[in-house]
């Protein structure tokens, strides 16, 4: 917030905070709507993941103020996170294949 907030006693900064709050609220409401309007599908899951990342962006960029830090700090945080995001995606994708090979769901009929 720094310079901007000092000039007008922080009014602009506070306005921005409430704006971000309403964006987060609206996205959560949309997620709820999709949870009940759409059947479970690849599309619905993708929509949820995209909206989650949008929410994460607003929290990190505005609330945690990362957007307004210097570039070297922004990249120090974003690059490792980008790798871990890729890792999550890869593990879930590959994990599905690895576990497909094994009939892991136990057939619970062993009551004698």
């Amino acid at each position: 917030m720094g310079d901007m907030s000092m000039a007008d006693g922080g009014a602009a900064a506070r306005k921005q905070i409430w704006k971000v709050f309403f964006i987060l609220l609206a996205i959560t409401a949309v997620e709820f709507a999709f949870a009940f309007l759409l059947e479970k599908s690849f599309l619905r899951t993708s929509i949820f993941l995209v909206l989650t990342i949008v929410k994460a962006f607003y929290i990190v960029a505005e609330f945690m103020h990362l957007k307004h830090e210097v570039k070297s700090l922004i990249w120090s945080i974003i690059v490792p996170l980008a790798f871990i995001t890729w890792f999550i995606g890869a593990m879930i994708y590959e994990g599905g294949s690895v576990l497909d090979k094994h009939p892991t769901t136990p057939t619970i009929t062993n009551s004698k």
Partner: protein
Amino acid sequence: MSSTTLTVEINQPSTTSAWAGGKEPMNASYGKLMMWFFLLSDAFTFSALLITYGFIRYSHDAYEGAVSAFQFSQMHWPIPEKVFASLPLLHGVNAPLIFVGIMTFVLIMSSVTMVLAVEAGHRKDREAVEKWMLWTLLGGATFLGCQAWEWTHFITGSDEGVMMDSWKYIAETKQYGWVKEVYKGASLVQNEYGPRAFADLFFFITGFHGFHVFSGVLLNALIFFNTAFGVYDKRGSYEMVEKVGLYWHFVDLVWVFVFTFFYLI
């Protein structure tokens, strides 16, 4: 060449590189940077939990039929909106995901009050910091209370329960064995909602997040009292509010992911 000259040369601030010392190259204090890097490492931990969740969930069969006909079974992973469909004081009312929606709202709201406290700190407005920190504390405590209710409800289970095989001690044979019985609720060993791992992951992931919220509430309380006792006025800087604020936003951020992975997908 005398040694005095040498000392002067070393202490000369570098004009060539921001990284040569004497400056904050990232324009952030040591404490703030360390908070960022701690949060990064914490993000790795939570990512590991989410990866585990993905692995285990997709190794179980998904439920294939119509949502309206869904029934709890060990044979498929439960649909979250069927498991989390209750509200306090409204027994028997079907309210899928409403309570967890309220919890999400409470946590986002407390993140907003936190960032307002940080903003007030920039203006060194002690009363405003106190006010917003109190709201943040209230939000955090409310969230924890909601989670306590959520866990209690999850552990207690439905009125009817589900007929299933329980692994338990049988008095007659003096041995452990499988017994068919009506089981209600959940433990780490079994649960009525679905495969054993479902409840295990629920307890572990929401529990680990809840522990973060709990630590956050303690830190927020510390900040509130320090503000009230004028510690930051004496210090001339409200940066501690900002550092703890970063932690609190991170807790909110993790919940956004837990909410999506555990309750929506």
